[in-house]
């Protein structure tokens, strides 16, 4: 999601509420002998407000389960709320805790909350930057889930191209020192390049390979084209290079896509931990 002008009302609203919360907390803290505590009625009110905002932020994932409930409003609006109200919740929790770390449980809650916020902000930055990078770096973008299937397809196509290259007739073989660069010798080089480098790369573009570097790959293809014996199959080599480029872009897409979503592996579990520890904190605080 891009932070664009449509976020302005949310930013202004959240900022105003945050300032009001901080200001009222400052004033109430001065009015209360000994200062406010999280357990005082006012402190609890701040805690409840912060918890409610967190629950709202957490409902975003629940919303995905009920896409038919359109009466809940557009998902974009929920996303904006998720971002700005969860940041606002931290302000309320700060007031609730009276700017203290508290005991061990509260300290754990703080760390988890900070973790949730940091991973969320990190994710927001990634969501902001990576789609633009995808547009620039991966013009041949494909559905992410299709990438392995497409790679197999590309390999199959490449296999056919290489096989067909052998059937192209070559000039009479020469038994000169150029034997490795003419006729079957050159095709053998093409086959070797394909078997050793291109095919493994197409099957698993994410694994380490010299072809991950497009400059080196381009040089390798140029070298093949320069072989006298491969002049008749240059068209085949061009097709192979095109397939390589497709595979390389799919690999780049996979890599960027992983970055785009991997932060959720921390964000969601931390949110779950925040929920469990928050409930425990509330129960124990109200019990005693």
């Amino acid at each position, binding site marked *: 999601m891009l932070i664009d002008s449509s976020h302005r009302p949310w930013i202004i609203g959240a900022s105003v509420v945050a300032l009001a919360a901080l200001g009222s907390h400052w004033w109430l803290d001065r009015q209360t002998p000994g200062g406010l505590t999280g357990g005082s009625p006012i402190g609890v009110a701040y805690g409840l407000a912060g918890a409610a905002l967190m629950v709202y932020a957490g409902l975003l994932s629940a919303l995905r389960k009920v896409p038919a409930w359109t009466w809940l409003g557009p998902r974009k609006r929920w996303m904006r709320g998720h971002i700005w109200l969860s940041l606002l919740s931290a302000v309320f929790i700060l007031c609730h805790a009276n700017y*203290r770390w508290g*005991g*061990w449980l509260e300290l754990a809650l703080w760390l988890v909350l900070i973790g949730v916020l940091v991973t969320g902000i990190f994710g927001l930055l990634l969501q902001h930057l990576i789609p633009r990078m995808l547009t620039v770096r991966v013009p041949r973008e494909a559905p992410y889930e299709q990438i392995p*299937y497409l790679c197999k397809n590309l390999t199959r196509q490449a296999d056919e191209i290489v096989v067909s290259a052998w059937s192209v007739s070559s000039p009479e073989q020469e038994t000169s020192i150029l034997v490795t660069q003419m006729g079957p010798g050159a095709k053998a080089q093409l086959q070797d390049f394909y078997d050793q480098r291109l095919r493994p790369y197409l099957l698993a573009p994410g694994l380490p390979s010299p072809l991950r570097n497009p400059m080196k790959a381009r040089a390798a293809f140029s070298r093949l084209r320069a072989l006298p014996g491969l002049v008749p199959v240059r068209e085949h080599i061009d097709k192979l290079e095109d397939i390589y480029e497709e595979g390389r872009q799919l690999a780049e897409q996979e890599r960027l896509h992983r970055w785009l979503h991997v932060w959720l592996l921390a964000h969601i579990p931390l949110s779950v*931990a925040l929920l469990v520890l928050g409930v425990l904190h509330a129960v124990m605080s109200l019990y005693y």
Partner: protein
Amino acid sequence: MPSPLRDPKSLPDWLELDYYQRPRPLRRWKWLIAVVVFLACVAIVGAVFFVPGNRLLYQAGPVSPVHNMFNNECGVCHTDSFAGAKRLLPGDAHPVSVPDSACSQCHSGPWHQEQQTFTPACASCHREHRGESLLHVADGHCTNCHADLKRKDGQPSPFQNITSFAKDHPEFALWRGTGAPDPGTIRFNHQLHLKADLRGPGGKPTQLDCLNCHRYDEQRQYFQPLSYEKNCKECHPLSVTLSGDWKDDQLKQAAQTFGQEAAPHREPAIVRSVLHDRLAQLAEKYPALLDTRQGTSATRPFPGKRPPEADPATTASWVNEQLQTTTRQLFDGAAGCRYCHQVSQVRTPAGLPEYAPSAIRQRWFAHARFRHDSHRQLACVECHAAPGSATTGDVLMPKIDTCKQCHGPPAVASTACVHCHGYHDWKHDGYRGKMTIQEFLRKK
């Protein structure tokens, strides 16, 4: 730029049409980790909850040092379940989760003032779980009432509009009245005693300072009571001079030694008895003293008095004569007891003088605490104008403005109410501990 290898017209050739039905690895990992974290949190919470001795984890802060032994026994103080929730309900006058009855198991906490209209709950002032002393009570708890104090009897109070020490604390009670002088009866001149050329014991030049006489008590809070024996005797011994015609050097030496030994600083009857005994012992030791009576100045009458009749030269008569002389020096002489003490006009039937009680006040500010050691960096005269005091009636205590120089803006010394005042009136403390050690430990 679309891929030339993926013609949209042949979509089914290069696209798996059921791909969305297959599990997605990233999403699977996401939920797997979330479930593991959830279960781990629940397991840790459960383990912590059921393993005894781990209540510390739930505390918002450590308890005060004095309650350390109850750190893991929440129920000792938190006697009601969900008291934290109940106090949020409207209509609760004491929004605290620990009832006073829990505190009164071990503490008394007598009331503050009999005219008070409101008694706060213990825990509203003494905040636990802050890791600090429970005696750190915020000013707001005091000014909650004292900013607009109401009394049961409806009478006005001099303490009814106090919001802070620096702003509107009234002048100290000592200075709010008519300015009564120091009620002490011991004639004392601070100015004289602080002179630079004072003569000390043996006539040596001496420079006294305040701490020569005013010595810290063991807590270094206040000063030890002043006493003649500790503070005055060295320079003002109660010595006497025997009368007689001292021709024999040995006798003269004995008389001088007798005189140098100070008389006790006690009631006149005791002083006279002690002198009598000492004189009798002296006469017994030096019988020749009886022969020194002739021509002694002691036989000279005071102006307007009849001369005493001559007694036979017996030990008893010598002792009586010397006793009369020495007690006269002490009781009637200008350098005797009345040099410092106020003597009454009427004598006792035994003819002895009566002196007014010294009435030296130990504490001037009865409703406040003070710690001299905390103010040791300051010269005493910054608060006590002793160098200018020449009379006993001078009150040398500071006024509130003296304190406000440091305890108030722009200086930053504390102005907390509890630094000087206590809430509970311990005269009404009726708590008597009845627990056995075993009972106490079971409660723990």
